[in-house]
């Protein structure tokens, strides 16, 4: 009776050699997460339903979906800024129950501090961690160099262009060396040219740092341009509809035929969800 048990224990032990465990262990695991919101008239809206996903260490995951699908809600949950109604989220196997420095978010509005210089902005997270002045200055400069902004260390935020602000925000978050970096439609407000440049920049920085990134966008081509995988959410309630692996060589370009092809596949499915959203809107209008 005991023999097969021993064998199975042995095999499982063999598989749990540290390097294998490292590979098998997802960086971030979302397990059966739902989020309901109460509406003013007493009912509740299900924003997210039974979402499960895993983010691998060093992965670039993009989340797309029609507006109102709960993309940003999902990001808030994963970053610990909001708590799920049910389900759990794990970072490195540890339950996430609040914001932590391991989970860094770049919001669309960035929230750079105008009263601080570029360098002081990048230093901010390190200062809050209690890092010594000389050391944090050195580290901040490294990350400013990484985003090619070292000559702007003593500029103030209002003196920078849109793309430069994005790069400061990137450096500020990366400097804290988070476990996962979340980006919530960070490039939505940029003009097309600057956005192209930011895609290149982000791809390069991601490669150089090996940072795990979860990137939320409504722009399918952007998602396919950047992501290792693209996860499509359904319209209300938000569920995982499809996960597309993007197996395209890097560096990628928006003009690549393969990229356009993959984007079209994602877009076809996204269209279905957008149509649902439109239908629901019409039915509401018909009731009124």
């Amino acid at each position, binding site marked *: 009776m005991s023999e097969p048990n021993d064998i199975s224990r042995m095999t499982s032990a063999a598989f749990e050699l540290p390097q294998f465990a490292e590979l098998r262990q997802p960086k971030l695991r979302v397990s059966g997460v739902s989020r309901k919101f109460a509406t003013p008239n007493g009912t509740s809206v299900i924003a997210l339903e039974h979402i499960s996903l895993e983010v691998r260490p060093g992965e670039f995951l993009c989340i797309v979906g029609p507006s109102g699908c709960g993309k940003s809600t999902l990001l808030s949950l994963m970053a610990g*800024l909001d708590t799920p109604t049910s389900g759990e989220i794990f970072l490195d196997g540890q339950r996430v129950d609040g914001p932590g*420095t391991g989970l860094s978010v770049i*919001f669309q509005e960035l*929230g750079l*501090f105008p009263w*601080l210089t570029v360098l002081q902005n990048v230093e*901010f997270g390190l200062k*809050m961690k209690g890092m010594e002045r000389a050391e944090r200055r050195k580290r901040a400069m490294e990350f400013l160099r990484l985003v090619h902004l070292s000559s702007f260390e003593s500029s103030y935020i*209002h003196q920078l262009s849109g793309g430069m602000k994005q790069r400061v925000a990137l450096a500020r978050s990366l400097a*804290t060396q988070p476990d996962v970096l979340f980006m919530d439609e960070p490039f939505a407000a940029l003009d097309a040219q600057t956005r192209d440049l930011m895609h290149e920049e982000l791809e390069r920085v991601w490669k150089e740092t090996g940072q795990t990134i979860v990137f939320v966008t409504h722009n399918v081509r952007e998602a396919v341009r950047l992501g290792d995988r693209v996860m499509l959410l359904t319209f209300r309630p938000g569920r995982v509809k499809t996960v597309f692996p993007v197996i395209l060589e890097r560096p990628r370009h928006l003009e690549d035929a393969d990229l356009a092809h993959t984007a079209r596949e994602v877009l076809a499915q996204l269209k279905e969800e957008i149509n649902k959203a439109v239908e629901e809107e019409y039915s509401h209008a018909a009731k009124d």
Partner: protein
Amino acid sequence: MRRRIEKLIFFFCLLAVWQVIYKMKIWSPFLFPSPFEVFDALRLGFGDRTFLIGVGISMRRIAIGYGISIVLGLALGLLIAMNDFLENTIGSLVLSLQSLPSICWLPLALLWFGLSEAAILFVVVMGSLLAVTINTESGVRNVPKIYMLAGRNLGANGARLFLHVLLPASLPYLISGLKQGWAFAWRSLIAGEMIYGSLGLGFLLMMGRDLNDMSQVLAVMGLIMFLGYVVDRVFFVNVERHIRSRWGFAPTS
């Protein structure tokens, strides 16, 4: 440059018209002195140091009174902004007290503190404290949420979030509160000194009246105007402009 010349010419013309009216002898020179006589009174006042002492004493009073207002007003404004109960109670009290002209506090202050320095300081504090409080409160409430979100996300909590994010983020609003507080403090001080005050500019103004010395009255009025203008229009306006441009606000005229 052009605007400066325009201004200069305007003020020169004003003085010229004044001088012409004086020469026309419509009113007695005792009631309507010439600009030269007022200038003489100013020179005389500074010559025997009475004006110097007056300015010094008024400045000392406003430094103390306004200083107290800033400290109390910032603290009170913050508390009100962060606590709904305090906002509903103390907040409404502050708003209703704000409609009371500060000089109304003088009778009360005289009864409480007697003919003392404390009575004047009390009036100055009551005059400016509320303005600082109200502006601090709205300033803290106006801080864009994104700064707090970003600050928290970068690991700032509690006192450090307050010190490193909330306070600097609300500075553009705080500064307009401080400016308004200053204006109220200055007016309260002069009013208080006129009714009761040993030395000080308000006192010098009343002394001119008692001596029937219109030149001194006008000279002191000019002095009060000048000091108020320098602090309000030169100091605060520049600080405000600097902060607003740094914080990325559209430049205001």
